[in-house]
């Protein structure tokens, strides 16, 4: 086991690597207002982050990551374009697996640059990859943007598409919705009974949700019932897309095949091809770089484009040694009107030192 001071020394060295690329060092506070994080991630964040409180400021969280404070800082007074780096503790509540650290050092690199997104993606990936050089790790990449484009392009109603879009990051509910829309799961009896009836509310109306809200959902359900089933072919296309696990180069050609029947993903696939080119120019071996279309779907829901992670070859049970991705939508949510394309990644120097140690023996 590496000592804390060894890990901090490693973290400084990694941060220096990003500074050398022109990144500015930032050091946001450990205590973050809980409201912003709760608003972004919902109730799930309480299971993953430590919440504390006082009578004056109310609920605060021990930062579960740096992304949100760095984005906020950049949106309030950052110049454009900008590159940031940081190193410090993050805190993750652990209630299931005692072997997972609840406090560890994280080093990150974030790029806010709208000039050339493919180049920025490649820059972040290559910089982190360089920081990991010599370690027995393997990279996986993905692209949430392709799945989002596929959903937008489905031949079905707008409400169905928004429901699927809302659950891109919850694969189980996403699947259940697809099965419902395609008619694979039958309409539940209670729903049929409701739609066959007059929708009258036969109980006292209590609480904030009004009769108008209830009626408007019944109306939406009626419209949905009138809308034909999502074609089996469309579901197969989504499934074929999600099943892609290939080298980036082969994945692109499989995606091109799918795009023949689902042209809505063409632009997103073009962006992936541009990214592949940019990665190659940075010296990344894309012939052997893995691409998994469903990668990044179960992480916290702010990645909406390129995603990547590095796993230790011999330790599949470990968390990622490094990971990151593009989060344009997050800057829009936090930007109060403003938005800027952003991509970044984080590394775990503690795990890196453990891997180096295991390598020496």
């Amino acid at each position, binding site marked *: 086991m590496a000592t804390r001071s060894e890990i901090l020394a490693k973290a400084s060295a990694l941060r220096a690597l990003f500074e050398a690329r022109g990144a500015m060092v930032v050091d946001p506070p450990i205590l973050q207002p809980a409201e912003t994080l*709760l608003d972004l991630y*919902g*109730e*799930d964040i*309480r*299971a993953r982050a430590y919440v504390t409180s006082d009578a004056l400021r109310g609920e605060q969280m021990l930062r579960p990551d740096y992304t949100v404070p760095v984005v906020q800082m950049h949106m309030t007074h950052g110049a454009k374009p900008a590159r940031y780096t940081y190193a410090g503790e993050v805190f993750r509540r652990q*209630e*299931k697996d*005692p072997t997972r650290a609840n406090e560890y050092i994280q080093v990150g690199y974030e790029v806010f640059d709208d000039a050339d997104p493919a180049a920025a993606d490649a820059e972040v990936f290559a910089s982190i990859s360089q920081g990991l050089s010599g370690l027995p790790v393997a990279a996986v990449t993905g692209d949430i943007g392709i799945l989002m484009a596929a959903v937008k392009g489905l031949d079905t109603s707008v409400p169905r598409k928004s*429901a699927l879009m*809302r*659950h891109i990051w*919850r694969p*189980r*509910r*996403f699947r*259940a919705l697809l099965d*419902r829309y395609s008619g694979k799961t039958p309409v*539940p009896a*209670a*729903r049929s009974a*409701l739609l066959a009836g007059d*929708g*009258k*509310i*036969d*109980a*006292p*109306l*209590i*609480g*904030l*949700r009004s*009769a108008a*809200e*209830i009626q*408007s*959902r*019944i109306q939406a*359900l009626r419209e949905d019932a009138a809308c034909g089933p999502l074609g089996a072919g469309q579901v197969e296309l989504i499934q074929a897309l999600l099943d892609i696990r290939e080298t980036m180069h082969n994945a692109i050609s499989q995606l091109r095949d799918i795009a023949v029947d689902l042209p809505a993903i063409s632009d997103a696939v073009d962006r992936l091809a541009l990214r592949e080119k940019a990665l190659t120019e940075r010296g990344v071996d894309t012939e052997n770089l893995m691409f998994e279309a469903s990668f990044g779907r179960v992480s916290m829901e702010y990645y909406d484009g390129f995603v990547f992670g590095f796993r230790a070859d011999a330790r599949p049970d470990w968390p990622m040694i490094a990971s990151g991705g593009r989060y344009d939508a997050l800057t829009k949510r936090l930007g109060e009107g403003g938005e800027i394309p952003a991509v970044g990644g984080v590394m775990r120097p503690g795990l890196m030192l453990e891997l180096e140690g295991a390598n020496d023996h």
Partner: protein
Amino acid sequence: MTIKLGVPSKGRLMEKTFDWFGARGVSLQRTGSEREYAGTVDGIDGVSLILLSAGEIPRELASGRIHLGVTGTDLIQEKLARWDQLVAPVEELAFGQADLIIAVPQAWVDVDTLGDLDAAAAAFRAHHGFRLRIATKYHRLVRDYLRVAGVADYALIDSQGATEGTVKNETAEAIADITSSGETLRANHLKILSDGLILKSQATLWRSRTAELDDKQRETLTSLLERLT
């Protein structure tokens, strides 16, 4: 050293527990005044009675300060992470039955399943500007259940009592609470979602997996458990 048996310190749960042990030849009794939390065990040597709040029994079992304890499955699973490694069920006592459920107003004729709840939550948040609030004291169990089911756009509001009233008082839109007959729910114009059963609970005798035992205590525990099971 004695075997320490933790039992709820008041109410029906205490009485029923005393009856259950009594029927098996182990007589538990409170001593001293009504207000004093002390008790005795007759019918077996080497066992001492510890009267505790039912909510504290999980923690005491987990830390090994008591060897046996009576409390509900709901409290064990809510309060102890990885509870199955800390305590083991010895016997279900067939009382204190209660289901942890999710309930919404009966007037929500459009909401019958968790899928409906999720859709209603999305629309509610868009309309009201905040997440649909679910009042509960079982935060971990409810959050885990809703996460696995893929329900989003809700927030848990802490409610330590009279939870069924929170909807009418407009401090929550739905609730997650324990119910035995469902009468309180009906009286408050609430209905259970068809897939809203989170956990079936009942009073259960638990053994601590962490409490240390010397030879004498091991012997006492064995003969006590033979008597009870």
